[in-house]
């Protein structure tokens, strides 16, 4: 190309006074953004290759590097921001669909940030979690509908299959293939240690990780990759993936370059072949078909395991969830439009779906209105960033949340949103062995455990402040929330009052 239309968004700023030419930046950049020039005895940078992942910044021993926003700008135009102009240039050049990774970065409202949590004052004592028991244990699954007694009048303690969690957070689906072996190992080991669950995603379960089965949710998606009887048997629960918040209505595509020997064996597809998940399940064209798959999976596992149905938060999510709740599903997972992805068409990611807060509020309300809320648990993901978001989601009516982006950040992810290139410098979203080894699971799992423990402490503090010492009484306790800066309609949908009311 003789003409380069695009000037880099970010520049690598090197403090030459501090640079000692150790070349760690050069060795660590899979994009080739740094180079040592022998003649000059100097490091130079190539801004156009930089994805702003901060690997070099984090490893530079002298803090000689930082990444800054380039000052370059187009003539200001409220209708044509630079991002859109650049996208036009890219498409004019490539003729292709724009690809992006991770969650929707656009400036849509974040409702979690417009809700505030209550605390006790005077009439009701707050509870100190350091001095009193504070319970965050959660069960996921349907509640028994009938109380039956034996001939001696004792209650028959028969419970439908359920999951037990030490805290209401799980690691959501990320497939082996989209993320590395080491990332999966970190998630599995952390889930085991914390007493929660991680999710295999649609890429099957690596044979090494069967031992973490009791903390594993296995996914059955439209591509059916890696699904076989042992896979189902190994898991604590099975998730049918109908949709994903980052790309509702479309399937997945793992490029053949990521399908090495291990991924190939785990997914049960030929090495080097593209793994393409169809947009719909081709055996599910309606709700009654979903019921058949739910019961097929239950049959296959002897009715021993709860079945989760995961959907993207779309416009009529409440009606869809209501249908799912009547179709044998034990748990409904709803993924909001902020949810992450290893690769999605940019236009889909940034323009399809609805916020998880609103989806959760309306699904919880609909299921209660129809008297079927006890039939299912609700798990929400796609936009949970902190323990405060967890507390707010539970108060809105969720049983539990799914986190993935936050978990990846604990593993080193800097949200450079370049997963689709397969060259993740942090060893997470890559199958290149030299890159994947950068994530040492011995370190990674501990960081995940730390994150979960930290959140648990914070959740306990917030619960104690509200005078709540058991998380089940926070569930759906919407009086514990107040809105700020929300209009009547938003408050109505969220089912909360405005601050001051």
């Amino acid at each position, binding site marked *: 190309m003789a003409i380069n239309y695009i000037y880099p968004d970010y520049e690598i700023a090197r403090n030459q006074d501090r640079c000692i030419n150790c070349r760690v930046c050069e060795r660590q950049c899979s994009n080739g953004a740094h180079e040592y020039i022998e003649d000059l005895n100097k490091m130079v940078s190539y801004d156009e290759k930089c994805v702003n992942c901060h690997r070099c910044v984090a490893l530079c021993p002298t803090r000689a590097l930082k990444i800054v926003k380039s000052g370059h700008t187009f003539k200001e135009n409220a209708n044509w921001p630079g991002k859109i102009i650049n996208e036009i240039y890219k498409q004019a050049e490539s003729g292709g669909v724009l690809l992006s990774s991770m969650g929707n970065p656009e400036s849509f409202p974040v409702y979690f940030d417009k809700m505030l949590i209550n605390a006790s004052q005077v009439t009701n004592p707050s509870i100190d979690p350091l001095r009193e028991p504070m319970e965050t244990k959660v069960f996921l699954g349907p509640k028994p509908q009938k109380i039956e007694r034996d001939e001696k009048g004792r209650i028959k303690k028969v419970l439908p299959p359920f999951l037990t969690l030490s805290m209401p957070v799980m690691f959501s689906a990320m497939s082996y293939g989209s993320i590395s072996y080491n990332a999966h190992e970190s998630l599995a080991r952390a889930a085991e240690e914390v007493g929660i669950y991680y999710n295999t995603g649609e890429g099957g379960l690596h044979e090494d990780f069967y031992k973490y089965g009791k903390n594993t949710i296995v996914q059955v998606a439209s591509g059916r990759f890696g699904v076989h009887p042992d896979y189902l048997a190994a898991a604590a629960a099975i998730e049918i993936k109908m949709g994903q918040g980052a790309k509702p209505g479309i399937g997945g595509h793992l490029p053949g370059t990521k399908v090495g020997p291990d991924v190939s064996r785990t997914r049960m597809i030929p090495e080097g072949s593209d793994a393409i998940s169809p947009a719909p399940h081709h055996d599910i064209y309606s709700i009654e078909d979903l019921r058949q798959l739910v019961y097929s999976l239950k049959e296959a596992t002897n009715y021993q395991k709860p079945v989760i149905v995961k959907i993207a938060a779309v416009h009529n999510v409440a009606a869809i969830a209501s249908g799912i709740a009547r179709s044998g599903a034990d748990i409904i997972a709803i993924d909001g439009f902020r949810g992450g992805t290893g690769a999605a068409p940019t236009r889909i990611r940034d323009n399809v779906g609805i916020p998880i807060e609103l989806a959760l509020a309306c699904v919880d309300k609909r299921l209660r209105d129809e008297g079927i809320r006890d039939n299912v648990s609700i798990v929400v993901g796609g936009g949970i960033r902190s323990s405060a978001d967890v507390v707010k989601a539970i108060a809105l009516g969720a049983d539990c949340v799914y986190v993935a982006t936050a978990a990846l950040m604990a593993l080193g992810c800097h949200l450079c949103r370049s997963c689709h290139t397969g060259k993740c410098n942090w060893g997470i979203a890559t199958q290149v062995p030299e890159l994947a080894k950068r994530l040492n699971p011995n370190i990674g799992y501990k960081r995940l455990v730390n994150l979960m423990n930290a959140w648990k402490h914070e959740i306990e503090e917030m619960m104690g402040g509200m005078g709540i010492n058991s998380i089940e009484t926070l569930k*759906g306790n919407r009086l514990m929330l107040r809105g700020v800066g929300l209009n009547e309609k938003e408050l109505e949908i969220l089912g909360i009052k405005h601050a001051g009311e």
Partner: protein
Amino acid sequence: MREGTFRNLSGCAISGIFSKSGKRFSGQKIIDSIAVMHERSNGLGGGFAGYGIYPEYKDYYAFHVFYDDSAAKKDCEDFLDSHFDIINLSKIPTRKIPEITDEPLIWRYFVSPLPTKLADSQLDEREFVVRCVIRINTVIDGAYVFSSGKNMGVFKAVGFPEDVGRFYRLDEYEGYCFTAHGRYPTNTPGWWGGAHPFSLLDYSVVHNGEISSYDANRRAMEMYGYKCTLLTDTEVITYIIDYLHRTKGLTFKEISHVLAAPFWTTIESKPREEREELEFLRHTFASQLLTGPFSIIVGFEGGMMALNDRLKLRSMVAGEKDDMVYVASEEAAIRIIQEDLDRVWSPKGGEAVIVTLKEGQI
């Protein structure tokens, strides 16, 4: 402002007296007891529940109703006429005293469901009555049924409880069980319906506390068809008890393990059989767990249950003398009516005191 338009938090005094042999005693005793705890109320609500007080009408539901005006009374009586046989109706006898003012119209009806209506509804009799009560309270403007059990009645008003007792001439009633409530709300309600006890059928609840689980409990109960119109803890607790006892068939001991469930660490330390039962109850009735401070006295046909929250964040003392059992927020409220007690104790958080009539009594 009325209860139901806002959430009214309150601190309170409670007291309960129960005769295990079913010996009936005068309502004056419970007035004497609750009067000792005058300081725990602020004159914004007081009330009583008496059991065994209508032996001559014991087979009929006794509806106590507040009316704002005679139009509401007419609407309500039309409804009652079309759904029930009204065996007897009268104004509830009261005594004019300066401490109690702004009284609504207060009427009492002894009723029995119309057999045809009941058969048409395909409901069991008690469910039919519950639905009718909820219907009146939510649909008929200005009418409020505040007592609907058999051989029992609730008497409540805005005022100090001892004045409310005198107003309702409680000394003229005799029963085997009385409970009482003195209210200390943080807001100023002007409506008698908001006072305690709250009751449905023969279940009545007096409550001192403020549950932090309120909205979780309310939303769960509304899913089962209850309408929490008053937005008070007592209302939702009564509905939970009705649901667990009448609909789900739990015993009061089991109900206490739902309302004030033991901590998981405690449950894990129990022998297998007990552990499994506690786990089952906590798991199944997670939405009926109450957190935050409370002490409640639940009256029901033939029994009484007193229960503290799991951390015992509110005071509650129990005492025993012969066949009499006493429970109150303060020991003084027991001593004033029975100086010489066989046993006095402070029940632990979550440990229910449940007393029932001896076999064959009443």
